[in-house]
């Protein structure tokens, strides 16, 4: 892989917050307070709790907007603002402040998280209406948003880690929200455990940062990074990559994402669009000052991105579960972002651009899928759908906008963002470019398959299922998100987003492509069209079988089994782990307990023996006193004379 010359990333040097920016902490504090009230308030808050949840995030969004426009009004070189809340802990020279960092990158995230998150909150009011634990659900949602905001606003790796773990906790609580279902409880546990592997990377990475630089603040690390050795930076880079893999469901830690669909659908939307999976992309982009100096780590990032974008797309092709198809798609799209961020300064801005547009259209489609499930008695099997476009016109139209965006239909937001990533990939390396191109084709295939099976083809509804359009509180957010899916591309107008992010990620270099950009765009369109046509050929043309056919190619079978990721971990880690645990139990029972109990028994025996001396006769006590005194004096004399 050819890489441009090493250059240090921009130094983070925030000015202290003043004026309207001193409201920054409120953005986190509001949802956090909401979570606190809802989770501690108990039943008293049942009646109005969900509106409190919506309200806190809505106000956070308004503040985020105000902050964004204030930042827009500032000079480009002056767009990095730090707010020191208090000193979290200190030991010797090392000090971790609860510091927030507000700059163009976190500004965009703030709006995405609170905006899309807020829409998802509104939608959930309708979606969870009949759930007796709705108040608790909103408490967890608020916690999720607060944790994610901490993650993107933290001005110190340790503060980011706080949010990072908070996101892990909230996702665990939400994925397992219907914990009475075994599958949900299991999925939550799996998400938590797999994420933990990534978290170890994060913890070790932060530890190594501290050991190397003696500080973990972005300002400190970005300033000192050029002085560190290449090997150290590479190690830090790979550890941060491992962390990103966990949260962003990248190969090889991707296995939790599909199971995580067990959570209520708004949760899936929140995880996939506004929070959680974007954390990895954020971490890598934020750490550009490390990755710019660690080309090998960056190569690793790009490779992981390539693998995952293909892996997710292939899995998406074979799933009949509408949410799992979308989950596969998320993996794949996040793969694009990771790939872009692995391309360095050329790619960071496009990674974030795609992250935003993906946030819009994926939230749109997940909530659309939730709307479909709402009308289909919570059935998720697309083989039981078909011809729903007439029954749910609003959901259909908004979903279609999302569809056109994700396949990259010209003019829609996904077209602009994905095209840029593919272009940048080709600028760097042909193989990477080809992977991205093929991925786009497969995206066209599985999304068209989903569209056809759900909205077109024949009715395959179960008995007693009467699809109906969802209430306005659910379709409202869909309309807003659909509009954003269409118009998200405007962010690229006049290279706005690239210029906007350049103070954070560095000046975008001039690209040099072998062929003109327009030609590449056309090639991408052709490849996508081939994918769509293939889907039409296999799905739209024929009748959709009610039960998934069993006599299929090995590739399909592998894709259905999620490319054997789970089977692999099961064979390599889980089962040996269980066996090992069994052996440990035996060892514990026989050897450890044996030793401890044996020791206990012998002490008990000793105790019983000594007890005989304590016979209650004062004469024997006096004798022991006398004997003791004699011994003491004798010992003193013998030892010293």
């Amino acid at each position, binding site marked *: 892989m050819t890489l441009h010359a090493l250059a240090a990333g921009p130094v983070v040097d925030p000015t202290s917050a003043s004026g309207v920016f001193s409201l920054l902490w409120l953005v986190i504090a509001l949802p956090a307070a909401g979570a606190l009230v809802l989770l501690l308030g108990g039943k008293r808050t049942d009646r109005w709790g969900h509106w409190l949840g919506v309200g806190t995030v809505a106000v956070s969004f308004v503040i985020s907007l105000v902050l964004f426009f204030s930042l827009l009004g500032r000079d480009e070189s002056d767009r990095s603002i730090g707010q020191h809340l208090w000193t979290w802990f200190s030991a010797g020279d090392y000090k971790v402040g609860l510091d927030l960092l507000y700059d163009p990158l976190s500004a965009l995230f703030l709006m995405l998280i609170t905006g899309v998150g807020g829409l998802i909150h509104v939608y959930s009011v309708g979606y969870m209406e009949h759930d007796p634990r709705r108040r608790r659900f909103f408490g967890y949602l608020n916690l999720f948003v607060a944790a994610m905001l901490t993650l993107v606003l933290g001005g110190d790796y340790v503060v980011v880690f706080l949010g990072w773990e908070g996101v892990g906790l909230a996702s665990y609580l939400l994925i397992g929200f219907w914990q009475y279902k075994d599958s949900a409880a299991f999925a939550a546990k799996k998400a938590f455990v797999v994420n933990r592997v990534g978290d170890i990377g994060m913890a070790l990475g932060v530890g190594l940062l501290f050991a190397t630089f003696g500080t973990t603040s972005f300002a400190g690390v970005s300033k000192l990074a050029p002085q560190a050795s290449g090997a150290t930076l590479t190690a830090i880079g790979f550890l941060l990559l491992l962390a990103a893999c966990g949260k962003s469901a990248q190969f090889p830690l991707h296995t939790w994402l599909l199971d995580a669909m067990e959570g209520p659908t708004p949760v899936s939307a929140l995880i996939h669009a506004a929070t959680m999976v974007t954390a990895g992309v954020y971490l890598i982009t934020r750490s550009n000052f490390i990755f710019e100096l660690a080309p090998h780590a960056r190569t690793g990032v790009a490779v992981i991105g390539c693998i995952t974008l293909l892996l997710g797309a292939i899995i998406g092709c074979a799933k009949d579960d509408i949410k799992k198809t979308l989950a596969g798609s998320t993996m794949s799209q996040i793969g694009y972002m990771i790939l872009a961020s692995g391309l360095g300064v050329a790619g960071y801005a496009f990674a974030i651009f795609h992250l935003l547009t993906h946030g819009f259209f994926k939230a749109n489609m997940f909530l659309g899928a939730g709307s479909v499930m709402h009308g289909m008695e919570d059935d998720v099997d697309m083989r039981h759908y078909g011809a729903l476009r007439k029954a749910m016109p609003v959901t259909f139209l908004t979903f279609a906008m999302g569809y056109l965006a994700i396949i990259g239909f010209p003019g829609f937001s996904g077209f602009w963002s994905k095209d840029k990533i593919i272009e940048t990939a080709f600028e760097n390396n042909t193989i990477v470019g080809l992977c991205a191109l093929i991925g786009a084709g497969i995206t066209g295939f599985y999304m068209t398959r989903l569209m056809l099976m759900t909205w077109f083809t024949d009715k395959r509804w179960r008995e007693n299922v009467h699809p109906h359009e969802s209430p306005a509180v659910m379709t409202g957010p869909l309309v807003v998100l659909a509009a954003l899916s269409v118009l998200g591309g405007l962010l690229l107008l006049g290279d706005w987003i690239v210029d906007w992010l350049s103070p954070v990620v560095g000046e975008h270099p001039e690209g040099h492509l072998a062929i003109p950009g327009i030609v590449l765009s056309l090639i991408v369109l052709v490849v996508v069209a081939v994918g769509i046509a293939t889907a039409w050929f296999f799905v739209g043309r024929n009748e959709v079988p009610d039960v998934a056919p069993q006599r299929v190619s090995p590739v399909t079978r592998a894709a259905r089994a999620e490319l054997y990721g789970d089977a692999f971990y099961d064979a390599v880690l889980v089962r040996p782990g269980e066996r090992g645990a069994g052996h440990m139990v035996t060892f514990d029972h026989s050897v450890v307990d044996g030793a401890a109990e044996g020791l206990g028994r012998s*002490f008990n025996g000793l105790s019983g023996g000594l007890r005989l*001396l304590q016979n209650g006769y004062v004469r024997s*006590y006096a004798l022991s006193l006398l004997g003791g*005194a004699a*011994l003491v*004096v004798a010992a003193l004399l013998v030892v*010293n004379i």
Partner: protein
Amino acid sequence: MTTFNAPHLEYATLLPLLIVLGGAVVGVLVEAFVPRERRYVVQSALAGVVVLAAGVDTAVVTRNLGLFHDKPGKVVAEGAIAVDGPTLFIWGLVLALSFLGVLMFAERKLESGVLSFAGQAAALPGTEAERQASTRGLEHTEVFPLLLFAVSGMMLFPAANDLLTLFVALEVLSLPLYLLCGLARRRRLLSQEAAMKYFLLGAFSSAFFVYGIALVYGYAGSMGFAQIANAVAGRTDGHVLLLGGMGLMAVGLLFKVSAAPFHAWTPDVYQGAPTAVTGFMAAGTKVAAFGALLRLFYVAFGGARWDWEPLFWAIAILTMVVGSVLALAQTDMKRLLAYSSIAHAGFMLTGFLGARSLGVVKAGDISAVQAILFYLLTYGFMTMAAFAIVTVVRDAGGEATGMARWAGLGKESPLLAGVFAFLLLAMAGIPLTSGFTGKWAVFAAAVSAGAWPVVLVAVLLSAVTAFFYVRVIVVMFFSEPVGEGPSVAVPSVLTMLVIAVGTAVTLVLGVVPGPVLDRLGDVAQFIR
């Protein structure tokens, strides 16, 4: 004709001690002049006020002597009493514990309206006279002046700066306690037997102590600690006298702190004495006696450290072994706590081995005196609270001290069982309790003085002690109750206050020990 020169006394400095002694004397007069029905109120209020006033005055004296401003304190009463940091700390601690003791003594609700002391001590158990005393609701309110006398002894003991004062203090402290031990309202024979044993053995050990004093006087030619220290440093002839004297005096003091092999009285007396007395005695006596032990051996015999240290290594180890191993076989809660207190004495003796020459101690290090004083603080409060809890777990025959009767207490009264479990964990030295910090302090002091083999044993035996503490917790929470199960009597606010204060101190010193430990570091210096 010889002229008699009146001794010069610094009344201001000695005032806390004098308040307590005066209060005790007034208490005796109250018995003579106040009508019977009003005595309880007058006596308990008097005792409480006296102890509080002495406590406040201790703080005043501390400030006036400027102890927090690097002043060493002062030797007063013609050299007989040393008022320095350790003295004042122990005064404060003893007075605080005594206040809790007064509260426990004054508890009347548990015995339906009368004190938990014998109605008429002179009436023989099981006689008509005893029955009458009980139906007439007689009470011995003399327990309050007795307590005050004991407190004055406890205050004088660690402050004594010559051998005679030391001995007088020992007796002033002990005699009221012998009496108090025999005054239980229920199980009177057991109680009287305990008092008798305690008295006989106490007298016996005092004899050793006095003989030790005589030998040391023979060696040094003086009673004063400072002169003895000079003599030891000067290495005059008659080393045998010194060794014998030190040994015999150690016997007397080790008896008081119930270190093995002089511990045999402890379980019997702790079990037989009224529980309020047991709590007060277990906490107060140990505090005072350790104070005296520290001063005698660090100040007077400090120069002969290499002579006595091996002996204390052996005593510390033996005490810990005896305390923790014998506790394993106990089935009575009060005996269990007695052995636990023996084990604690062993742990404190471990800290006692942390004596180092002044020049060796680095800034920020934990000194042995500091560690032991802190341990005494933690031990005193958790012990008071634990014995207070023993008084409220009852059945038809009074306190249900048999451990089997405690089964199922966790269901009957989760809060009380929880608090007791917390105190037991503190005694076991689990982190976030004061017990952990205390153990850590004494072990750290001992290790830095090179006594790591003892610390190794101590750590191992800590695990053994944890076993029997946890067993009580298991019994309370995971065993099915026998028969009707235990019942928790609702005590008056007095006993509740003891439990609450003891538990709160145990918790606070476990979570934020720093301020107290640091402050102790400033004052833990003996004046020489």
